[in-house]
């Protein structure tokens, strides 16, 4: 396979912009109408994902290790969408047809052979990863919503019983799809450490115009069944030194992964000192403060500081989270876990770094794009 030739060919095709994925999916759906059902009604985001993945594959084509990891993840990830081995041939045929269509006279038998070989390689890595994963995980978990508590006007807490039981590390997230919004998956962090009854807690904030969050925060969610993807994410204590004290900074529902970590720490025989900052716009949106303060009263190693950004009447700390956190201390001896709005996380990480905290002690994960 001539990588340089493939890259040139891809660059030529990519000049046609959104037309390319549009053609690809239409071709795929005309030749295989049954596949249409695996996708959401609006394909706008989907087309973006496809192009992103192709760009990544083409640019990493000579980096076997990284590309292999990416494709394996992609293959595992596609199991929950209902992709099966048979679909890969259909996708390959439509991909080839699309490349041919936009290549025009530049399309030669050699180029066709190169693309065919490249796609076969891609498909084999993805299907192999999916096949191995079949021995470990179901493609997705059923999740019965056993309770849905509205904690603030725009925040609900869901309790979900997964079937079969779901193993994860505190701080990880799962993709979730609800019956009211089929084929739209959004990532939510699990807000508790694993419990004996296996229940998972999710904190959902209503995003203006958010298709999925609107459905999830509805009281009608109780009793329904959602689908959950496999646990993902690296915002876990594995990334921290075992004996170092912790700084947890949570903006709104960014509390979820940090609360799971906090619960995990509390079950240790000798927990480190933990300072948790929990920020919200108004006091009413500090939706989980009661249970946090109860924990703090029980555990001398835990300090909880609620922070409100827009409430002049609030008795506690007021201001932006990065300001309040950095006003207190420079925290440089601790491991910091930050979660919440991506702007807050970026700002806090930068301020902590400039106050002397080493980069490898600052742990973040950006799921901002998944909030809608």
């Amino acid at each position: 396979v001539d990588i340089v030739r493939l890259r040139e060919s891809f660059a030529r095709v990519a000049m046609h912009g959104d037309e390319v994925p549009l053609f690809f999916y239409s071709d795929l759906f005309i030749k295989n109408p049954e596949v249409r059902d695996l996708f959401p009604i609006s394909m706008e985001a989907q087309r973006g994902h496809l192009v992103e993945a192709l760009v990544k594959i083409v640019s990493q084509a000579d980096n076997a290790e990284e590309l292999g990891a990416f494709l394996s993840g992609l293959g595992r990830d596609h199991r929950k969408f209902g992709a099966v081995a048979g679909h890969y041939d259909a996708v390959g045929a439509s991909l080839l047809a699309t490349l041919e269509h936009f290549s025009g006279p530049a399309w030669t038998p050699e180029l066709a052979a190169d693309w065919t070989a490249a796609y076969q390689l891609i498909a084999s890595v993805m299907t192999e990863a999916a096949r191995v994963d079949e021995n470990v995980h179901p493609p997705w978990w059923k999740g019965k919503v056993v309770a849905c508590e509205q904690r603030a006007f725009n925040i609900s807490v869901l309790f979900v019983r997964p079937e079969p039981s779901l193993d994860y590390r505190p701080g990880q997230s799962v993709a979730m799809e609800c019956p009211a919004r089929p084929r739209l998956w959004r990532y939510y962090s699990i807000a508790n450490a694993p419990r004996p009854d296996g229940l998972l807690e999710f904190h959902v904030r209503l995003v203006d115009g958010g298709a999925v969050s609107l459905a999830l925060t509805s009281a009608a969610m109780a009793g329904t069944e959602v689908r959950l993807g496999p646990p993902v994410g690296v915002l876990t204590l594995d990334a921290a030194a075992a004996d170092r004290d912790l700084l947890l900074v949570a903006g709104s529902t960014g509390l979820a992964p940090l609360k799971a970590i906090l619960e995990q720490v509390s079950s240790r025989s000798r927990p480190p000192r933990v300072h948790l900052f929990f920020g919200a716009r108004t006091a009413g949106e500090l939706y989980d403060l009661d249970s946090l303060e109860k924990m703090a009263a029980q555990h001398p190693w835990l300090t909880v500081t609620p922070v409100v950004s827009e409430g002049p009447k609030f008795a506690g700390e007021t201001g932006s989270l990065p300001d309040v956190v950095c006003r207190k201390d420079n925290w440089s001896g601790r491991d910091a876990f930050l979660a919440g709005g991506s702007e807050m996380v970026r700002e806090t990480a930068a301020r902590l770094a400039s106050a002397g905290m080493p980069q490898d002690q600052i742990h973040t994960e950006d799921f901002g794009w998944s909030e809608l």
Partner: protein
Amino acid sequence: VTTVWSDETDRITPEELQIVTFPMTRLGRRGYEEDAVQEFLVLVHAEFVRLMNERASLWQEVQRLRKRIVAAQADGDSSGVLFGEADAHVHAVRILSAAQVTADRYVADAQAYSSRVTEEARLRRDDIVREAHQHSDMILEEAHARAREAAVTALNEAVPQSPSPSEREWQAAQAELAYLRTYGDVYRAHMRAYTEGVLRGIEDWENRQAASLHEVSDGQPVARRSISW
């Protein structure tokens, strides 16, 4: 190709332009609410742009097909006049793509609309909460003022020339009692009126929501634009 465009039912029609109404502004001012009119103008403008674009692309398509027919007639080839065999698939792909783009736009429009509605609701909620806070401050303030008055009156009632210590104590207790009683009465009356008002508002809202859900489940066309105005 034309079926894709003629299927678009949820658009501004000339009839709607004739019957559209806007809410009147608050008492004391004349005319319509400016935001509602602005919002409508934005929709009308988008609709015009859409129509012009469609007209242009339809015109191009007509020209293209005309040329083909003329060329095919000159060749004496009557089979597959409009599209060649391989062309047919590409054409089908184009049609499906156009349909998909239309669907995407509807979803995006609906999303944007829902986003606006939730944002408005959130802002209105903030307003209501703020008003409620002010209202409760006012209630407390008034209850306090009236109670103080009552206490002063009780103190001034029939003051003996030189009250004994026990009489003074009794008087102070009377004054405090009058204060608390009045404070409680005023506060309770206001609170009850206010709470009942809020409950009426919620009931009204629930009735309207139930009615609109009923309308939707009956399959009647929902006047989308009348909801926001």
